[in-house]
């Protein structure tokens, strides 16, 4: 058994050329552009959609309070959606890389938990607001239809909402959870490695 292996000597044999700093700064710029682009994109989307809905309000001049309330709820749903998205995206990149490993693991944990909470809660609020908004908005126009047509319109819409609520929403939540759960298991494993009590 040889106990005198020169690990440090072997370790230092690893050589690599130092890449030009130009390459690094190109990466920095690309990174800046990318994160900026993401924020612009989601916010433009919100503004455009809201503008469109406000245009409907202005153009069709709904008379009943239910239609107006419906529009407000729909806009609110989207506003909350984008707001929360804007909040959670930076969470993933905001972790302080100059904390010690133990602290940064704790921080990562907290962010992940917050993310799960925001995602599920946000998705529920979004669906409820959107569904309520659509139903309210439809009411004024349904009154003008024949009973059969109004019933069909409401039935189709409610079916669509139910499909979203009972199928798409749980699926989306499950997908998000699977991703974060796996990560949290790995984080726990890391935490155990770091923890003092062995």
């Amino acid at each position, binding site marked *: *058994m*040889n*106990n005198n*292996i020169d*690990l*440090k000597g*072997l*370790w*230092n*044999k*690893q*050589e*690599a050329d*130092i*890449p030009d*700093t130009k*390459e*690094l700064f190109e*990466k*920095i710029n690309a*990174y800046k552009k990318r994160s900026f682009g993401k924020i612009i994109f989601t916010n433009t989307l919100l503004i455009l959609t809201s503008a469109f809905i406000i245009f409907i309000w202005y153009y069709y001049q709904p008379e009943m309070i239910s239609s107006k309330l419906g529009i407000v709820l729909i806009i609110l749903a989207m506003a909350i959606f984008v707001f929360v998205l804007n909040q959670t995206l930076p969470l993933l990149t905001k*972790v302080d*890389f*100059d*904390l*010690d*490993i*133990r*602290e*940064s*693991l704790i921080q990562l944990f907290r962010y992940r938990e917050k993310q799960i909470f925001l995602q599920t809660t946000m998705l529920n609020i979004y669906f409820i607001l959107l569904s309520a908004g659509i139903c309210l908005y439809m009411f004024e126009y349904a009154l003008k239809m024949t009973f059969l047509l109004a019933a069909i319109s409401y039935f189709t819409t409610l079916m669509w909402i139910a499909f979203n609520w009972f199928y798409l929403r749980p699926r989306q939540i499950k997908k998000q959870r699977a991703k974060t759960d*796996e*990560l949290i298991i*790995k*984080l726990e*494993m*890391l935490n155990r*490695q*770091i923890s*003092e009590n*062995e």
Partner: protein
Amino acid sequence: MIFEDIYKAYWLKIFRLCMGYMNDRDSAKDLAQETFITVWQKLPDFRNESSIGTWVFRIASNHCLRQIEKQNRMPKTQLPAEIEDVIHHGNEDKMEFLYKCISELPESERIIISLELEDLKQAEIADITGISESNVRVKIHRIKEKLTKKFNNYEQ
């Protein structure tokens, strides 16, 4: 402190740390670059609370650990280590073997041993990992034992 100076002084050290973690030159280079992007971003906030070296190594270690978010399902550490040893007899360079062995250790051990081999003081390693100094000493001892065992199997 000027960024370019830090970059020149620490690039190779950080690259080696990342190589120990990943055992893949391209990934190690990417990781080292990500580290220096963070260094560049955070340098104006650097408060001299720790030495610049400790600070840079902390950032690098965190970048390494954050790899778990990107890596696929099966962590390397779940591979049965003993079997691995037997397969890799032969002409493999000792240096490469060392990096390979390190990259197969549990994540935190990869970082601790890399910092030790990079000649950091145990107090600095404690500062980077958040583990107490005495525990760092114990861990380093155990990891070195593991590596020595692997090397002895390799050389037989």
